[in-house]
């Protein structure tokens, strides 16, 4: 058997590394300011109101959580489904997944109306609530991915990698399915479709793979570590399949909403009359996040720069999709009396406006910066990535 790969941590003493951390401290400090500002004055200082109660922080948070579950796909392909090519990057995949999840969950916590009651959120769980059950599965997910990472890195524990990987895979599947179902089970007209479950699985795979590839390229580019043609080719295919599945399911979802008379009005709003939401749907989610990257990825051989460009497009499209799904879904009025025209002092029957404030955007970007900081520190502290990624893959785990 060939010798195992040599894993190395990031060189951490260079001025560049400290510069990177200092750079990340800027969005983190802005997010801290935003959090305390909202905490002090209440959510009145955000663009949210009693019609649009989940705003920009949720767009970032749900994107990060969805991408986190998808970023684990690479590790799961290696350790559950035996794809040897991904084994050298499996530890990075697990760390990316954990970092993105922590960033997303931190945002959800910091955007609570009563974030000071974190202890209540942890200690009082309503067993009937899908949301509360997800809190338990977030824990199972993080612990199983953490243990998986440890077993991967600890040679003596390598033989137990597969069982723990299977647990991580099942919790990943549960998490992403229930994320989709939280929308699917909601009565609002834009939600209320079980297609959200498979659609979010595809979105997670696309966003997670794109984030993973960008981070892999960033780390390898940072240290001049090379990535083999074979690995980037496989990642390109994985991303291509995920984007194609996302696009297919999104088109299926939108056309089914349009086809059914009971949901045609909301489909018309999303597809044609929704202003910013319609623009973000067509230009952002479908064109920039779907058709364009797919056109780039469908070619048999592409450069690293093209693959990175496709990943950036997928991430941008993903954020657009989250905005359309979350904000657009709330902007469309809730219908209490189907067939009748409704109006009230509580804005019944109206499209609800929403303009995010800077504090919300700062808070959202803080979640991304937190994930990036965890990655920077994690990669510096633990040897998670091989020195070279252009060697034939080893059956190490």
């Amino acid at each position, binding site marked *: 058997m060939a010798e195992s790969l040599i894993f190395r941590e990031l060189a951490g003493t260079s001025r560049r590394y400290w510069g990177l951390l200092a750079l990340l401290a800027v969005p983190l400090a802005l997010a801290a300011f935003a959090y305390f500002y909202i905490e002090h004055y*209440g*959510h009145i200082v955000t663009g949210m109101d009693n019609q649009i109660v*989940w705003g920009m922080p949720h767009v970032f948070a749900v994107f990060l959580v969805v991408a986190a579950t998808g970023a684990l796909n690479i590790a799961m392909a290696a350790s559950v489904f035996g794809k040897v090519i991904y084994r050298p990057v499996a530890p990075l995949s697990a760390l990316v997944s954990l970092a993105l999840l922590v960033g997303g969950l931190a945002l959800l916590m910091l955007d609570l*109306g009563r974030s000071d009651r974190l202890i209540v959120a942890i200690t*009082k*769980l309503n067993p009937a609530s899908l949301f509360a059950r997800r809190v338990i599965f977030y824990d199972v997910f993080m612990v199983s991915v953490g243990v998986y990472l440890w077993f991967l890195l600890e040679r003596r524990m390598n033989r137990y990698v597969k069982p723990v990987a299977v647990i991580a895979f099942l919790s990943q599947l549960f998490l992403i399915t229930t994320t989709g179902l939280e929308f699917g089970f909601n009565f609002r007209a834009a939600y209320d479709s079980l297609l959200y479950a498979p659609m979010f699985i595809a979105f997670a795979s696309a966003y997670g793979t794109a984030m993973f590839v960008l981070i892999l390229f960033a780390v390898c580019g940072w240290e001049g570590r090379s990535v083999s043609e074979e690995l980037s080719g496989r990642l390109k295919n994985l991303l291509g399949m995920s984007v194609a599945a996302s696009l297919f399911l999104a088109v299926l979802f939108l056309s089914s909403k349009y086809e059914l008379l009971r949901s045609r009005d909301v489909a018309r709003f999303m597809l044609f009359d929704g202003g910013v939401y319609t623009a973000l749907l067509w230009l952002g989610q479908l064109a920039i996040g779907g058709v364009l990257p797919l056109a780039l990825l469908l070619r048999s051989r592409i450069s690293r720069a093209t693959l990175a460009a496709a990943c950036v497009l997928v991430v941008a499209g993903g954020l657009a999709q989250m905005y359309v799904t979350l904000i657009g879904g709330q902007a469309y009025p809730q219908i209490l009396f189907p067939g009748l025209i*409704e*109006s009230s*002092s509580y*804005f019944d029957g109206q499209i609800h406006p929403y303009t995010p404030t800077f504090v919300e955007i700062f808070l959202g970007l803080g979640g991304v910066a937190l994930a990036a900081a965890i990655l920077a520190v994690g990669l510096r502290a633990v040897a998670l990535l091989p020195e070279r990624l252009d060697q034939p893959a080893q059956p190490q785990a």
Partner: protein
Amino acid sequence: MSADANDGISRRGFLAISAATLGGVMLAPGIRLIEIAGARAPATGVSKQVRWGLLIDTNKCTPGCDDCVKACATENGLKDTGHPRTDPQWIRKVELKDMRTGRASSVPVMCQHCEHPPCVDVCPTGASFKRADGIVLVDRHICIGCRYCIMACPYKARSIVFEAITDQNPDVPRGNGCAEGCTLCVHRVDRDEQPACVEACTKAGHNAMTFGDLNDPQSEIAQRVAKYASTQIRADLKLNPGVRYQGL
């Protein structure tokens, strides 16, 4: 003996009055205790036998009249802060128009106090809860302000408080960052009074709202829902709200 009889009060009479007074002093507190015991003690909680409900007769509800909304605001300390988009609304008048027939109607909409409330199902901490008598409430001590209940409620009946509240009604504690909605004036109901909206509607002579125990066949509301056709908003969702509408 004759001298004794002339004293004005006989020994027998004295003993009888004394016994009666003593008996009265001893029994009166007991009778009072029985009366107290007969009332609903706070510790005994509420009964599952009761299902509080509202019946709203839309034929009697005048478009433009907002007596119920004003009464709710006064009773529960809901103030106009000048920010209509963020101000909580526990009850609102929804004006309806059927474009096919031209028929217009006006209905008050508040928390529908569902038998299967989605807000309770989704609440991560259990802050949203349903009392045994069917009243759906928010425990402000464990609400974390996640707004999930607002997302889940198909009636737009929940609000969140966006800014600090001052000068609150002691019966109705509220808090910045917490979700809230119509409590069916639970503090009044527990004192055997009517919700403020119902009282205001009746006082103004509209009589469009009837409050009572849907489970008690003798109650006015139970008799009316048995006699007249009434509907529930979004009955297709099978949430079985405790608020019913007549004439929709």
